[in-house]
C-alpha cells in the first residue's frame, strides 16, 4: 500500500502542476459518506475521527493536521509520512492557516462542498488572499483501484457474502427487522467489517429499500437487503432478495427479469464504454418487459455506482451519467427494481472492470433465495 500511496500523492502533485498550484489544502470533515471520496483515506490510508486537512506541495511528502488531539498516536502509526500533528477541533482552522503560510503560492483548497460555514469563515478569515478553489483535483485521481485496494474490496465482498448467509440462516417469523440486521452486522464485524452501509426492508410488497424498523417478520415476507461492509476503509456491496417462505410463480418470473437485466448490464460494463450504457442496457430489458415507467423516479434512481473508499468514479450509473469505464474501476451493478405485481426486489454484485469485461467479486450466486433453498 505504501507504493500505492506515493503514486496517488504524485498524481495529485502532477495535477497541481498542471493547474499551476504551489500548494494544496485538502480539507475533510470526517463525515464519511457513501457518495464521496475520502481524500485522507485515499492519500494517507487513514480514516479520520475528526475534521482534518492534508497539506501538499508540488513535491515531497504531505503534512497531516488532524483532530482530536488524542488521536495523534493512531495517525502516527498508520500514516507513512512523518509530518503529522493533532490539534483541538476549535484550533484546526488556525493551524491550517498558520502552516499554509509556509507553502508556495498560489494556494488552492479542496473541500468547500463539505466545509461548514463557521469553519470556512474562520479559515478564510486567516488568509489575506483566499485560496483558489481546488474543486475535484483529488477525486479525479481516484478512478481506478490498485492491487492492494482490490484485495481489500475483495475481502469486503466476502464479508458481504457472509452477511447474506447470516440473513438466510437466522431470519424467522416473529423476529424484528432490527434484530435480523443486528445479527448480520455482528457476523460481519467479527470478520473485520468496520462499517456498513446496510439497508433492509421486509414485507409482502416493498416499495423501496429503507432503514430497518421494529416490524416483526411475517410468513411470506420478501426481504430485500443492500449489504455494504467496509474493510480497512474499502466497501463492497451485495444486493439480494430472500423470501421467508416459498416464492410464487410470479415472484420467480419477475426475479428472472432482474437476472436478465443484470446480464445485460454486465455485458455493457466493458472498458471504453460509457457507464450510462450499463443503465441503458438494464433499463432496456426491464422496459421491454413492460416496466419502462418504473425505471425512472420516483421508483428507481441508479443502476449501480462506483464503490471503493466511499463514492468513486464512475459515481451513480444512470442513462445520463458520463464517465467512461476504465480497467481497474470497481463498482456495484444492481438492477434493483420495483415491479407493481411483486414489489421491490434486489439483485446486485460488486465487480471490477477488467480488459475482457467485469469480474464479479461477489461469490453469492445470482438467484432468488428463499427459506430452505
Amino acid at each position, binding site marked *: 500500500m505504501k507504493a500505492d500511496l506515493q503514486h496517488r500523492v504524485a498524481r495529485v502533485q502532477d495535477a497541481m502542476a498542471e493547474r499551476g498550484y504551489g500548494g494544496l489544502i485538502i480539507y475533510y470533515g470526517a*463525515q464519511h459518506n457513501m457518495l464521496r471520496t475520502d481524500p485522507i483515506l485515499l492519500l494517507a490510508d487513514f480514516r479520520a475521527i475528526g475534521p482534518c486537512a492534508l497539506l501538499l506541495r508540488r513535491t515531497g511528502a504531505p503534512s497531516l493536521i488532524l483532530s482530536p488531539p488524542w488521536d495523534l498516536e493512531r495517525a502516527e502509526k498508520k500514516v507513512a509520512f512523518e509530518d503529522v500533528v493533532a490539534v483541538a477541533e476549535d484550533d484546526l482552522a488556525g493551524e491550517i492557516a498558520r502552516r499554509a503560510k509556509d507553502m508556495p503560492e498560489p494556494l488552492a483548497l479542496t473541500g468547500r462542498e463539505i466545509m461548514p460555514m463557521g469553519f470556512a469563515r474562520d479559515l478564510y478569515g486567516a488568509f489575506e488572499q483566499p485560496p483558489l478553489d481546488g474543486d475535484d483535483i483529488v477525486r479525479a485521481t481516484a478512478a481506478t483501484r490498485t492491487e492492494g485496494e482490490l484485495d481489500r474490496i475483495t475481502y469486503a465482498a466476502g464479508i458481504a457474502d457472509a452477511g447474506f448467509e447470516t440473513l438466510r440462516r437466522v431470519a424467522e417469523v416473529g423476529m424484528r427487522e432490527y434484530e435480523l440486521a443486528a445479527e448480520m452486522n*455482528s457476523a460481519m464485524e467479527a470478520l473485520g467489517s468496520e462499517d*456498513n452501509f446496510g439497508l433492509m426492508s421486509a414485507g409482502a410488497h416493498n416499495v423501496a429499500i429503507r432503514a430497518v424498523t*421494529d416490524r416483526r417478520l411475517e410468513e411470506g415476507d420478501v426481504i430485500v437487503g443492500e449489504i455494504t461492509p467496509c474493510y480497512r476503509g474499502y466497501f463492497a456491496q451485495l444486493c439480494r432478495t430472500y423470501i421467508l417462505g416459498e416464492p410464487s410463480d410470479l415472484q420467480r418470473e419477475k426475479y428472472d427479469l432482474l437476472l436478465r437485466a443484470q446480464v445485460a448490464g454486465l455485458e455493457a460494463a466493458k472498458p471504453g464504454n460509457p457507464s450510462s450504457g450499463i443503465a441503458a442496457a438494464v433499463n432496456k430489458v426491464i422496459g421491454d418487459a413492460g416496466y419502462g415507467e418504473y425505471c425512472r423516479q420516483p421508483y428507481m434512481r441508479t443502476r449501480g455506482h462506483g464503490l471503493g473508499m466511499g463514492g468513486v468514479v464512475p459515481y451513480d450509473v444512470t442513462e445520463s451519467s458520463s464517465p467512461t469505464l476504465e480497467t481497474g474501476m470497481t463498482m456495484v451493478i444492481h438492477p434493483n427494481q420495483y415491479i407493481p405485481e411483486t414489489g421491490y426486489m434486489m439483485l446486485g454484485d460488486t465487480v471490477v472492470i477488467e480488459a475482457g469485461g467485469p469480474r464479479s467479486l461477489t461469490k453469492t450466486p445470482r438467484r432468488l433465495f428463499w427459506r430452505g433453498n
Partner: protein
Amino acid sequence: MRTLHSILKHGGLFWDRDLLPPETYARRYAGIQEILRKSGDDAWLVFGDVARYGNLTYITNFLPRVRSAMAYVPAEGAPVLYASIGLRDIPAAKTLTWVDEIRVFGRVPASVAKLITDEGLEKARVGLVGFEESMPVAEWDAVADALPDVRWQGRSGALDGLRAVKDASEISAMRAAGEVARAALESANEALEPGVTLRQAFARLEGAARRRGAEDVRILAAGGSQSGVALRPIDDRVLEAGDTVMVHFAVERQRYWAELGRTFTVGGGGGAADGLNARAEAAIAAMEGAAKEGARIADIAAAAREAIGDAAMAARAEAYGFAHGIGLDAEEYPLVGRHDDAALAAGATLALRAVLHGDGTGAIAGNTVRIGDSGIETLA
C-alpha cells in the same frame, strides 16, 4: 466525545410513540415559535446533517441518516421538513415525524431559494439555526447569492436553553438508551476473553445493543498497551489474559443518546489499572457531586481536575472532555470551554467522563446523569 463517524445509521429506525408522544412535539414547537417571534425574525431555517441533527430532530423527530435535512419554521403556522431523500422514501420518512409536509431536499440552494420565494420572504428577516456548524459553505454561498435581500440572522444557539432541560419523555428515552448500553456491557467480561480480537469482542457487544433497538452504537476502546496511550476505534488487536480494556460505549435509541465508560480486565479479577480506575471513578464521583442546579459546567471540570490530582494526567483527560450536555446529540450544549459560565438547570442531562492514562496502562469511567432537584439521577 468524537467517535469514528459511521457511513450510515443502520440500526432500528422507528418512532416509539408511547415513549415520545406526538403531543411532546406540539408543545416543543409552540415554545420554539414563541422564541422565534420574540427574536423579531419572520421565520427560521433549522439545518442538520447526519453528524449534528439535534436541533432539527428536536423539532421534527426526523433524523437524517445520510446527508442533511432542514426544517422551515414560520412565525405562525406549521413547519415543513426538507430531507435529502428520494420521492419513494417519503412514506418511510413520514413514519418518523409528526410534520405533515415533507419535501425532497434536491439541490440545497435551489430548494432554499424556492422556499423563501414561495413564502414571500425575499426581503424578510430569517434566522439560521445549525447552519454555522453544518451547512457546507459552497452551498451557502449559492443560497446567499440567490437571495441577496434576505436579512439572515445567525441563531445557532437559539434552541440550546430549551434542549438542555429534558422533559419527562426525553428522560425516559435516555433511560432506555442507558439501559441498552448497560445491558450490552453486562456481557463484556464474557466477550473480552484471551485470544479474541477487540473487533470480535465488540461485535458481540454492539450486536447486543442493536438487538435491543439501538439505532446507532459508537465505541472507542483501548486494549493492553493501547490503554497507556489513547482510546481509538476498534481494531484487530488480540487480547491476552490480564490486559486492561478501556471502553467508551455510546448508544442512540429513539434519537436519544446515553454513554458509559468502563474499564475491564481480560480474564476478570484485578488488573494493573485498578489504581487508575479508582482515580477515574473518584473523578466521576467528584463531578457528580458538583453537578447541581446553578453550578457551571466549568465547576464540574474543576472538580474532576482536583480529584485526579496529577496535573499532566488531568490535562490529558481533559482532551477527551470531562463533561458536556447529551441528548439528541451525543455532544451538545453546554460544553466545557465554550459555555463555561452557563448555569446548569434542573433537568439538564450530562455525560461525565474521566479517561486516564499513566504508567503504560489506563482506565475510563463515565456515566450519563440527570441533574435533579435533590441530586443527580444516573441514566447510564
